């Protein structure tokens, strides 16, 4: 038997495959279609202090091997989450990672503190791809100082694992990973969606109500792998790899480049039970390779780092 479990700050996860935030609801929507106990854990939909309506329609657009979304972090708010969702989630045989979104550093702290007082929340994932109201809506996640500030503020507030979820829409994502590592984050997760857009040429209007949105799905997998690779070379803390994973083979690519775990996003919309199958597929791959622990795949890429195109000609 191949070991599939792993630990983060003393919390054990049954395997290295998670459901990505915003792609698996709060964790209780598809209990009839997918067995959460086959996952390492579920990242909840991003939770904010107050409920959020989300953006006006149209919110989703299909693109070549991908999709754009502009949900606007629609969510029921942390209080309703605790009252209506957490009781069910506590009964699931999987780990619950509460993903937090906010429009001020105080709000992040508020939401985290409230959740930290609850049973059944096993870890936190901080979505820093949020508009900072203090700075006129500038994205926290594209500013390394703001990203650092959030981590510094949150770290002392919880003893549970703190994962900071990074945006790929920056020049050097490794800077951001280093900054949050230095502030004591237990892990980083990446990537969130790439900024993208689509136009309805018949009407001459953007397809999404918000003009631009977030690109996800297999289209972005190569970008996500390169970002994980860049971060893996820069930090020692574990990485949750995310972006276009559609199969166990895709997931193994992420592990090899240096992710300790992976999150399944868009695929849940197409195949809600895929995460469990992917976890089993990874274990089977490791077994075939004669490994005793899936963790041996992590960072196993045989590559001449100096040849990376980051330092070479395109």
């Amino acid at each position, binding site marked *: 038997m191949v070991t599939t479990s792993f630990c983060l700050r003393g919390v054990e996860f049954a395997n290295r495959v998670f459901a990505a935030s915003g792609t698996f*609801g709060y964790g209780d*929507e598809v209990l009839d279609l997918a067995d959460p106990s086959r996952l390492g854990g579920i990242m909840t939909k991003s939770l904010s202090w107050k409920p959020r309506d989300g953006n006006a329609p149209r*919110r989703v657009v299909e693109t070549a091997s991908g999709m754009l*979304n502009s949900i606007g972090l629609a969510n029921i708010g942390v209080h309703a989450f605790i009252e209506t969702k957490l009781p069910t989630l506590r009964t699931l045989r999987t780990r619950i990672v509460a993903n937090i979104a906010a429009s001020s550093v105080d709000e992040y702290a508020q939401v985290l503190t409230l959740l930290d007082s609850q049973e059944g929340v096993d870890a936190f994932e901080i979505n820093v791809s949020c508009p900072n109201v203090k700075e006129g809506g500038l994205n926290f996640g594209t500013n390394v100082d703001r990203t650092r500030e959030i981590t510094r503020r949150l770290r002392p507030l919880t003893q549970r694992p703190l994962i900071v979820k990074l945006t790929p829409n920056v020049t050097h994502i490794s800077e951001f990973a280093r900054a949050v590592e230095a502030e004591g984050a237990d892990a980083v997760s990446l990537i969130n969606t790439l900024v993208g857009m689509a136009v309805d040429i018949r009407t001459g209007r953007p397809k999404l109500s918000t003009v631009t949105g977030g690109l996800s799905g297999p289209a972005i997998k190569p970008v996500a792998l390169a970002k994980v690779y860049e971060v893996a070379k820069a930090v020692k803390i574990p990485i949750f790899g995310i972006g276009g994973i559609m199969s166990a083979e895709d997931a193994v690519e992420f592990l090899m480049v240096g992710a300790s775990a992976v999150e399944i996003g868009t695929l849940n919309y197409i195949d809600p039970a895929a995460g469990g199958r992917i976890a089993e597929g990874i274990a089977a791959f490791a077994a075939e390779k004669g490994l005793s622990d899936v963790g041996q795949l992590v960072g196993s890429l045989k590559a001449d780092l100096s040849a990376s195109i980051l330092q070479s000609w395109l």
Partner: protein
Amino acid sequence: MSRAQVQGVVVARARVAEGIHRLTLKCPEVASSMRAGQFVNVRVRDDGWDPLLRRPFSVSRVDGDRIDLVFNVVGVGTKAMSSYEPGRSVDLLGPLGKPFAVDADFETALLVGGGLGVAPLPALTDELRRRGKSAITFLGARSRSQLYREHLFELHVATDDGSEGHHGTVVDLLSVYLGEHTVPSPMIFACGPTPMLRALGAFAKERSIPCELSLEGEMACGIGLCQGCPVERVGGAKRYALVCTEGPTFRAGEVIV
């Protein structure tokens, strides 16, 4: 209503009107549990990731362990489906969504379908008949050749070009009909393009006829995971409802179409 991810097997495919195809799938799981107004989300191709997302289709009719999908070719997904061969297996999620309120308090159902909005009406007709309720059906289409009218009863037709029945919209047709006939305890059930649903909602409100509309909308998942299919509510605590799980059927007046 027990949702499942299942494999349907293509039993037959037919061109049933101009540009309109009917696919008959053997799919006992959906056939046995589905109710009129619900839909299935179809994975149109199993190789390659473009197109990426499933495509939603109303279940048009149930016959034993078989279900019919009725659709027209608008893009890459429906084009692929229009050349499925018998024997092919098709990955489905379903049945999904909230069915029509066939058990609501009414005697006569007024079924209104515009274009491909006719799709769920055969199943609805069957359910109504099983309950001993009567149904009168009003279909609108651009032209006679684009009418799909199988398994429907007491049919009245409107066409944009006047090639059959009433020359005008299906809402006009309904209005004319109700001017000429007295219908005991009616309720409208409608499916079709947004402008038609909007007009019908206004009409129903004016006449104080209870009315249920089946909405369409872009869906990334169809199962409540993505929050991608909002429709604005009228009043209430939540601003949006999800078409895929709280709909696709809504009471007119409950949402802003």
